[in-house]
């Protein structure tokens, strides 16, 4: 085999390998839909975030508008402080409601934003005041059982 054929095949091999890496990064990983565009950051305090994790999606009307950047504990108000990176193209009014929702019954958790009627928009560093915590299944079930027991106790006599 000639020298040029050898070079050609090795070139094809290296190009195919790098192409595979690029496919993995852009088509399989999420490099293409995150990291590119400009974002602005807003905060929200939740009483309970349930199983929310950093990089979870932020959706409004079902459309992904951003991702959770970080979750910290606010030691003054004893709440969870969630920092969200919203894509700059999307604007939300000041009285937006943020609630932690679950995709499906046992799916992953995300933050849902619902716009209000205020004509001022949220800017970097602003906080969302109206929040709704995650639904913790155990609490819900124990509350249900407790209510049932209380009902049974009052109805009997």
């Amino acid at each position, binding site marked *: 085999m000639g020298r040029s054929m*050898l070079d050609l095949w*090795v070139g094809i*091999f290296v190009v*195919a*390998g790098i192409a*595979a*890496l690029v496919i993995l990064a852009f088509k*399989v990983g*999420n*490099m293409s839909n995150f990291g590119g565009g400009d974002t602005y950051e807003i905060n929200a305090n939740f009483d309970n975030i349930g199983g929310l994790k950093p990089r979870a999606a932020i959706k409004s009307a079902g459309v992904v508008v951003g991702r959770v950047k970080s979750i910290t504990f606010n030691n003054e108000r004893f709440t969870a402080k969630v920092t969200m990176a919203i894509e700059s193209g999307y604007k939300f009014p000041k009285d937006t409601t943020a609630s932690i929702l679950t995709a499906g019954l046992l799916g992953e958790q995300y933050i849902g934003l619902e716009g209000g009627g205020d004509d001022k928009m949220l800017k970097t560093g602003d906080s969302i005041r109206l929040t709704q915590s995650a639904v913790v299944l155990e609490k819900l079930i124990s509350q249900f059982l407790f209510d049932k027991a209380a009902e049974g106790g009052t109805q009997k006599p």
Partner: protein
Amino acid sequence: MPHRGMPTVRSIGAKAIDNVLRLGYAARFIGLTLAHSGTSFARPGLIVRELYYTGVLSMIIILVSGLFVGMVLGLQGYQTLTTYGSESALGVLVALSLVRELGPVVSALLFASRAGSAMTAEIGLMKATEQLSAMEMMAVDPIARVVAPRFWAGVISMPLLAAMFSAMGIFGGYIVGVVLIGVDEGSFWSQMQSAVDVREDIVNGVIKSFVFGVAITWISLFEGYDAPPTAEGVSGATTRTVVTSSLAVLALDFILTSFMFSGA
């Protein structure tokens, strides 16, 4: 003979000492290889030639087995996920298992048996036919001229082959899951993209395959260089290459996985 009574114990001790000696020799060997790598970077033609034999010739087996592994994952994953009604997560299952584990590990095992054994046999035969001694006679360092280019070619080609394996496997999973079974195409890709992290999953997979590449080429080259210069010696060294590097890959995989993915 004063020690005639305990031949078994004595042979165990001799084996242990022998293995420790070989390990030290292997460590010195890789040090020498790294120190004499200058020649192969000054003459990249040497590496390109070896890239053809280790990388290009392994490409077919890697691509075909990647495709089939991905197709099997698609079938088996669908069977299991459909009992929980979550077959839309098929893309996540196929992509994560390939990128994190199967891509690097299976391609490393194939690489060890396809390219590693050939390297051992070639160098062992060069030693048996006294080509290496002849090079030394002509003041050509066999480590710089024969061993180092092969080492770097193996280290370069292993991550590329593993990436090809993973990409091909995901394509195979796509063919079985979406084209043949009919899982929704949109959820297949979008769930995959939201679950696979570039740094956590893909870069860690590349690091794994790089480590495997170093381990396999090191073992193959050392076994060849250290082989007894007989036909039997070369065949034994080739067998040892495949066995040792497969075990090394699996053990290293466990160690790397426990470091990389334990904190999730």
